[in-house]
């Protein structure tokens, strides 16, 4: 068995490098389909969101949806890509049950978006650039259901004609981890832009992975395309499996056959798609029912003006303005809603600002943990940024300690009450009266005279023991800084 070590697979005969390129189909956020006025909503009754155009009835013609064009341009801008002011819709011809016209309207030689780049944020804080080859607009196909009847396949055309952006990367990735980072980043950008909801479970984001292996420094090997992998985890698993399969095949003296493969998530393996084996010849040609899609610079600039701040820019700003680590900034900007929550927390209300690092720790640590446990998103967080801000303010003004704050937060999540109310109701206010702390210290020291002696004899570690005892006596409410100060003085 071979072993994967980062981007290199150590085979029996030496190291192999994995080469990965991704083709992502991202469903465009729009009300209506790309070439018909039927709705795009997910989960409707079969064939209810189908127009006569989608069903390819004789004589039906496509008319393009303006918003789908805008969304593609916007996404291209988000990928820092070349926007082609003239693009052409082609027909991709093949027969399949869920492709009513016998062709898919797509873009082949002249896509709407050309070369761009995407910056991966790797888990260790490094970044890496991956080239985007192109983005083109095309129609989705319908859905075939093979398990409804013993001898028939059922066909639902609801998705048929929904706009997709096919986003093709350069073969620039070298590990499953990078592929996962690519998908996370792409999804993040799409969601920031509002051009795709990025929902992989519902199929709004689907990924085909091109996998090949080679000896480091050698030319590209033959690639296999793994179709329609529907989660980031499966993408990683599929890559790991497929790369190892290819290495083993090559090391046994075999050759990789260029083919389309399926990922079987149940068994964690890829397998050849026999049904698609006979060679495709898509016979692309410009769709004569449509004209070339053309727009001018002003159109692009109008769209550019609606662009939000994207994750990379936001991350850079968070690092520069808030002094965050690259890792923390990356985590906070991954979702626009998280970044917005964080910014609202830091910026506070009425000109108040809060410690950005502490805010980051609270969002990434306590808040994410609570959301995870509750299975909720930050949009319906049980604790709003203003409420969490209220808690942080109590820490900042020494009303409560950081440790107590964690308990208060858990209470906030549970009851929805504001931090101040919980602190007052439970009497959690920190003891900052030095007289009160002094008397409690005195009591503890006198009760533990033997330990005091040991401490003075050099057993420094006992300092923590005394702190703990005093804390215990105050119900954890003693101001830690003050307690430390006073204790140290009294032990002198």
């Amino acid at each position: 068995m071979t072993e994967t070590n980062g981007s290199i697979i150590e085979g029996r005969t030496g190291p192999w490098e994995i080469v990965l390129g991704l083709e992502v189909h991202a469903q465009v956020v729009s009300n209506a389909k790309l070439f018909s006025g039927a709705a795009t909503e997910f989960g409707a009754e079969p064939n209810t969101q189908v127009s006569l155009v989608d069903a390819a009835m004789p004589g039906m013609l496509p008319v393009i949806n303006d918003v789908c064009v805008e969304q593609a341009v916007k996404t291209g801008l988000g990928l820092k890509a070349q926007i082609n002011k003239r693009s052409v819709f082609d027909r991709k011809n093949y027969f399949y049950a869920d492709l009513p016209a016998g062709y898919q309207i797509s873009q082949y030689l002249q896509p709407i978006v050309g070369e761009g780049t995407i910056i991966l944020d790797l888990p260790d804080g490094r970044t890496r650039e991956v080239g985007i080859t192109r983005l083109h607009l095309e129609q989705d196909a319908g859905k075939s259901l093979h398990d409804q009847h013993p001898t028939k396949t059922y066909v639902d055309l609801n998705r048929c004609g929904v706009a997709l952006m096919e986003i093709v990367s350069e073969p620039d990735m070298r590990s499953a981890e990078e592929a996962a980072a690519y998908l996370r980043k792409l999804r993040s950008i799409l969601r920031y832009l509002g051009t795709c909801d990025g929902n992989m479970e519902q199929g709004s984001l689907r990924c085909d992975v091109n996998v090949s292996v080679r000896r480091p420094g050698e030319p590209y090997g033959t690639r296999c395309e793994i179709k329609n992998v529907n989660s980031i985890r499966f993408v990683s698993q599929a890559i790991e499996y497929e790369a190892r399969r290819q290495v083993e095949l090559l090391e046994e003296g075999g050759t990789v056959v260029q083919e389309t493969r399926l990922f079987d998530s149940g068994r964690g393996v890829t397998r050849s798609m026999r049904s698609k084996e006979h060679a495709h010849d898509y016979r692309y040609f410009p769709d004569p029912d449509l004209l070339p899609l053309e727009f001018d610079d002003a159109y692009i600039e109008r769209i550019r003006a609606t662009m939000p701040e994207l994750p990379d820019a936001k991350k850079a700003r968070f690092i520069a303005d808030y002094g965050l680590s690259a890792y923390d900034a990356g985590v906070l900007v991954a979702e626009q809603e998280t970044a917005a929550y964080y910014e609202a927390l830091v910026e506070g209300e009425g000109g108040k600002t809060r410690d950005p690092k502490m805010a980051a720790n609270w969002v990434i640590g306590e808040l994410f943990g609570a959301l995870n446990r509750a299975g909720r998103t930050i949009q319906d967080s049980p604790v709003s940024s203003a409420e969490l801000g209220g808690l942080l303010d109590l820490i900042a003004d020494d009303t409560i300690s950081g440790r107590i704050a964690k308990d208060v937060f858990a209470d906030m999540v549970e009851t929805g009450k504001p931090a101040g109310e919980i602190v007052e109701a439970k009497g959690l206010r920190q003891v900052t009266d030095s007289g009160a702390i002094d008397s409690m210290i005195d009591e503890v020291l006198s009760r533990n005279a033997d330990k005091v002696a040991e401490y003075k004899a050099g057993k420094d570690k006992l300092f923590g023991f005394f702190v703990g005892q005093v804390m215990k006596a105050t119900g954890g409410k003693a101001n830690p800084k003050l307690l430390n100060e006073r204790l140290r003085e009294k032990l002198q």
Partner: protein
Amino acid sequence: MAALTDLTMAAALDALSKGEFSARELTEAHIAAVEAARPLNAFITETPDRALAMAEASDTRRRNGEASPMEGLPIAIKDLFCTEGVLTTAGSHILDGFTPPYESTVTTNLWRAGAVMLGKVNMDEFAMGSSNMTSYYGKVENPWRRKGNNRPLVPGGSSGGSATAVAARVALGATGTDTGGSIRQPAAFCGIVGLKPTYGRCSRWGIVAFASSLDQAGPMTRTVRDAAIMLGAMAGHDPKDSTSVNRPVPDYKAALTGDIRGLKVGIPTEYRVDGMPAEIERLWAQGIEWLKAAGAEPVEISLPHTKYALPTYYIIAPAEASSNLARYDGVRFGLREPGDSLDAMYEATRAAGFGTEVKRRVLIGTYVLSAGYYDAYYLKAQRLRSLIARDFTQAFEDVDVILTPSTPNTAFAAGEKMDDPVAMYLNDVFTVPVNLAGLPGISVPAGLSEDGLPLGLQLIGRAFDEETVLKVGEVLETAANFTARPGHQSA
């Protein structure tokens, strides 16, 4: 007064407005004519009940003072136009039983203009043909016969049912579609007027597609004036067709001034093709003389790439057709032949559903688009298409309209030319270039051959200049004074 079925649209409109007869009476006369003409096999579906209901509604509108431009005129519809609730076949077995739940834009426009539907007329399967021999519903007979010979002749195609219905006085007019000559060639063969408008002038929405970059609907009538009336009703911008052009529809009748003085008429040298019968050559020369006599100025022009138009067409049209016809797969409508796999079902359905000529063109089209051949065939044809279109653009810098014969021959007998597809394709040698360039063209009946068959002359205009085409067409029509009638007619 002439028989009701022998009227022109213009005359019928006049009489209807004067109350000389009702739309119902006019329609009843035509329904009887439809029945009497059954031996010609012009109709696939007769819709007499619907016709009467439409006629009555028309009479009501007229009584209410709401008469539209084609109010009460009974017409026939090529079976390529989808008609809501009425079987639509495209002349093909593969559309068995297909009843569209929608109405094509052009027919919608016609009904809005007050026209009355007599039924759906026969055609070459999927509009592929120049003889009307390829229909699944049997061949159509041309109402004309050669002098002293009763052998049935083809009406031309693909709008042969339309041409026959109009020539045989069964309908006052009919819709046709023209991809490579399918309006003008049958019009010439049957002695009627056929107008192919500029590409983009009439909506293609709801018309079964053959070759989308070439298909164009147009009127087939007995006079140029009627063509003007009918085109006015058919044409117009349609947001449902992305290639429909948004420009106002002029009053085409107003263009029929008869005044063509000073107009420059191009005579393309390249249309003198080898083996063209002398009588067609003579008619063409006669046409030039007529226009000259009316004050126009003939100008020799060159359209140097003319001879390449047909082979160019026979790449582009089948390529588009091979893709357009992929939707006939037995899944959502029409014929389904059983098969134990999806592919077996497709292959059986399409083998049983398509006729020989359709299969031939789908295979050619598939081949010229396939990997390794695209550049040599399809891309080459598109470049030739540019050159052919450029020829016309350059010619129209010097002339206002171009005069040519409509066809290189007269109607032939069923069975002649059937064994040689290329010989059959040559029927469209004069009409095809016009489709490739997207220009308007009209065929006007201008004389009879020695054996007594109609001959047409074609006028080609600038894009969206149907007005000049119609105006010069009417001058030709007047000069030719074509009064001959087919042997087979209802009146």
